[in-house]
């Protein structure tokens, strides 16, 4: 059995599907494998957005705490999706609690390390921004549909 390197795992993740191989290697230098048991938090609302995650297996829910009630789940994310975008823009604070609903394996990417590489190589930085933006635009569309409350029961 051969063990995959982080670079190989990243290259196969849908988020990096269209990245140049040398750029995937740049990211690999900031990445490590992580694992969360059900109930463990990947990020906390208001906490430092110093990492972002690519989910390999499992399920993560993005939640907003509400006083005196169970937290509201904004969305759930699964294999092939990313968790965290607040690392891209100041003040680098997480907007949601991100909680593992099931055993979740992910790649954790050090945000400061990645930001430095984006600054140093603007071509790479642009590719990175475009990819995150693509995900954010899709999530924005989905959120709009959620807000429209289309089922109107």
């Amino acid at each position: 059995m051969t063990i995959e390197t982080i670079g190989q795992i990243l290259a196969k993740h849908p988020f990096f599907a269209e990245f140049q191989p040398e750029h995937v290697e740049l990211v690999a230098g900031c990445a490590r494998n992580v694992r969360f048991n059900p109930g463990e938090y990947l990020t906390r609302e208001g906490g430092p957005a110093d990492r972002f995650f690519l989910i390999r297996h499992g399920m993560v829910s993005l939640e907003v705490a509400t006083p005196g009630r169970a937290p509201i789940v904004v969305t759930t994310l699964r294999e092939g999706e990313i968790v965290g975008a607040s690392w891209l823009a100041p003040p680098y604070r997480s907007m949601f609690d991100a909680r593992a609903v099931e055993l979740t394996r992910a790649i954790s990417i050090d945000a400061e390390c990645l930001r430095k590489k984006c600054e140093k190589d603007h071509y790479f930085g642009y590719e990175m921004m475009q990819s995150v933006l693509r995900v954010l635009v899709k999530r924005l569309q989905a959120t709009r549909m959620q807000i429209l409350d289309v089922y109107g029961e």
Partner: protein
Amino acid sequence: MPAPVQSSDPFVPEIYRVGAVRRELADVVTIEIEPESGGRPDFLPGQFNMLYAFGIGEAAISISDETKHGGGFVHTIREVGAVSRALAAMEVGASLGLRGPFGTAWPVAEAEGSDVVVVAGGLGLAPLRPAIEALLARRERYGQLAILVGCRTPEAILYRHELEQWRQRLDIDIEVTVDHASTDWHGNVGVVPSLIRRVAFDPDDTLAYVCGPEVMMRFTASALHEAGVATDKVYLSMERNMKCAVGLCGHCQFGPSFVCKDGPVMRFERISPIFAMREI
């Protein structure tokens, strides 16, 4: 698409009796109805009947199943106005009028040899249920089969029992998502089009059946397109107010089509140019 099946005289309602009533959700009821005399006409998955609450009026209601021994129809009704409330309030033994079945059907036979993705939003699962049952009855004739269901909250999941039964099968992918939930719910949260990328199918050889509120169908058609499914392989079930149900009065006009006879199941390719027009 199979030709519509017409009843003997489309303007004369047949008398049916309510044989069973089941409350599905706070505002949704399922009724089983049997003809007072004779047999019921044949129907195809996706077709609808005009149900007549005497003294109140008629409404188009999709056929969501046949009764256990095949002698009658099953209809699932959301209480939104006078007719649907009267139908939903009927008790066992009550009588009602029925014209139908009318309209086009889901292309079940045409999908043989292909993958099928079924996307239902809210009550949209009702007209899809006979299609799902037909696909499952001849499961070996299809490739991958995915059923994606979206609704507002965990409490609003329609046909929970059937979903659980289908989920036990190892030969279909079933995903359910809700738009709004607290952490008490352990399933997916998010809109139903977002489930499309989570299931396996070959976009070059897939038929998709979509039914739900129009906004949900628009988002779903666009997600299917993004996943590589051609617009001539995507079928939607349209809803417009109906009167005659046989293409004469024009009440259900949708661009150049009449939903009662050219639909309700329509190929997205055919309607996409007018689908997004606000005034239609």
